């Protein structure tokens, strides 16, 4: 791995990282404050009349007036939030598998084969991201629900999310595959291996970092989506977690920001867990170079 930064003292790197951590964490601490306040209000600073500097300093520190886990309890007890999380997990996991599968195969073809339509195909994947999605809700509804009869079905969502994630994943993987030396495959070809075998046995194991990134991306695409999930699902037991979260706010009714914050924290946990799991691929010593050497 890179040695180039060895001459920068770690102290300065830590200083920068700690600063970034503070910036990153501060708004999230406010989310936590709302979640653990036991109240429903979105937080603003609370100042006494004619505040002193000290009052202001105290006011900008995110901390609830009293700590309570009531919001978390209510989120799970007053609606089937656990079920919704499970649905989300199912859809997101399936999207990840499907998205990564479709993207690795396509990415591999774009990287390794020279065939007519290759550039056009790649550009069409890129271009597909450029058309704004504001007007596509009704056409997508027609395709999924009326044509494919996948209303209120996990598969409908999985298909939608996979295709949303594919273009980025294909490009990402194609770029990574390009960096893997061809000599490895050529020697395998000599040994009589088919393209499919080379792909599964040689290329994929070498591409773990890129697959990890695309897996995380596919997962996130499915995990946070809200409008399609809501439009397609016609049973409460089929809703996903982001749909469930939106129950707490919006419209002319009381705004349950406490529940929303608590639910958001809970929804972030699986993402963190997935990242913890995937990050060993992001920093693994198993690089193309290592194998090559």
């Amino acid at each position, binding site marked *: 791995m890179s040695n180039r930064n060895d001459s920068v003292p770690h102290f300065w790197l830590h200083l920068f990282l700690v600063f970034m951590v503070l910036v990153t964490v501060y708004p999230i601490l406010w989310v936590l404050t709302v979640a653990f306040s036991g*109240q*429903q*209000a*979105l*937080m*603003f600073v*609370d*100042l*006494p*009349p*004619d*505040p002193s500097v000290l009052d202001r300093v105290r006011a900008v520190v995110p901390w609830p007036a009293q700590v309570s886990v009531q919001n978390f309890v209510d989120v799970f007890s*007053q609606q089937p939030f656990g079920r919704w999380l499970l649905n989300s997990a199912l859809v997101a996991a399936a999207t990840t598998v499907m998205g990564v599968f479709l993207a690795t195969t396509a990415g591999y073809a774009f990287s390794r084969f020279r065939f007519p339509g290759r550039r056009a195909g790649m550009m069409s994947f890129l271009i597909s991201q450029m058309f704004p999605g504001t007007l596509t*809700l*009704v056409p997508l*509804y*027609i395709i999924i*629900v*009326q044509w494919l009869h996948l*209303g209120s079905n996990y598969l409908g969502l999985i298909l939608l999310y996979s295709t949303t994630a594919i273009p980025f994943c294909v490009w990402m993987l194609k770029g990574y595959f390009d960096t893997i030396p061809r000599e490895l495959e050529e020697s395998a070809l000599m040994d009589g291996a088919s393209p499919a075998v080379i792909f599964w046995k040689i290329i994929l194991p070498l591409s773990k970092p890129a697959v990890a990134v695309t897996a995380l991306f596919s997962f996130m695409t499915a995990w946070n989506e*809200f*409008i399609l999930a*809501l*439009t397609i699902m*016609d*049973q*409460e037991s089929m809703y996903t977690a982001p*749909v469930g979260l*939106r*129950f*707490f*706010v*919006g*419209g*002319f*009714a*009381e*705004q*349950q*920001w406490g529940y929303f914050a608590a639910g958001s924290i809970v929804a972030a946990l699986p993402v963190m867990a997935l990242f913890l799991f995937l990050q060993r691929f992001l920093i693994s010593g198993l690089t193309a170079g290592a194998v090559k050497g």
Partner: protein
Amino acid sequence: MTKPVFWLATLAVAVVLVPTVAMAEIELVVWHAYRGKEKAAFESVVEVFNQDHVDDVRVKTLAVPYDAYADKITAAVPRGKGPDVFIFAQDRLGGWVEAGRTMEPIDFYLYEEITDDFIPSTLEAMQYQGNTYGLPMNFKVVTMIYNTDMVASPPQTSTELIEVAKLHTNEAGGKFGLAYSYSDFYYHSALMNAFGGGVFQGSRDPVLNSFENVQSLELMMQWFDVDKVMPAEPSSSLITMLFNQGDAAIVFSGPWFLSEISESIPYALATLPTVDEAGGAPMQPWMTVEGAYIAAPSQNKDHAFDFVLYLTGPAAGKTMALEGRQTPANLRVYDDPEVAGDVQLSAFRAQVEHAVPMPNFAEMTMVWSPATTAMNSIVRKASSPQAALDQAQKDVEERVKSLRK
């Protein structure tokens, strides 16, 4: 019990149960966007209906988060994939009628015995181009909510209001006598209507820059900028926080606000004051009315109407009023002593006498953006009320024209 006997018994029970289940042949699907207490009350009301109709109808509810509820209806209902009945505020009604295959007209079912039971303005909100498309369930209207520790008796006039508000304002300390989303056009409607202003007239021609509208905005700016009794950037979360910390004495808000008030704050409700500057006319907020509509592609319209009638009737209304804390549109609900004795419900009931149903035609949605822009630039003092409204009027006229092209 030995095993075979147990299985036989199970079989017997199943044989007995199956026919009763099979008899409830008609299933009505109902969509709504209720949550919390409102949802619980709504579901219990539906449960009662199901109990009464064990033999013929079974109503199934689906709660949909408000933020994309309208989109879901727009996508699903015209394609016959939607519910039999859905509940929504009147603001999208006109648009859905124009779009077609969404709203079922129900005038055929209506007779005076039915319509006389409803507060007239709420029923009016359900009508578009001379046809009625739903029955009103609940209305939501802004009223005056005040902290009884700070304000002993509610102000009756705008002059009194500002006097009281000034007593409780300390800008440096973040304390304000009056807090409401004054820069939000929806909340401003109360003042606008007091002056006799409005957004459309006649054949739905926009009249945003009318003299009355300008006057109403000048008064609002007087309160905000000269009397300085209101906070800046008044988002609804901010107002909730101020009131809950005892930093706002009087708030103009609707029923949704009440459940956000913390237990430590003693409060009461009163009708919005009259406006001395408008010749003593009362403030008249825009009212939203939640209607129960039958979906045009429904296969069970007659049953759906019976359900709508039940839902908007006195029994269901009472449950939703007392348990869901909603304000029913059915007058007969208020004959009930328990409802009549409820100070909050009576306060909203009193306010509705001075309320105007928000326009339900599609052109209304074109007003919000230009009006919000105007409101913000007025509050920011970037332009005068007249200039800002002139611009808004121009924008809305242009939009209406291109829709009707």
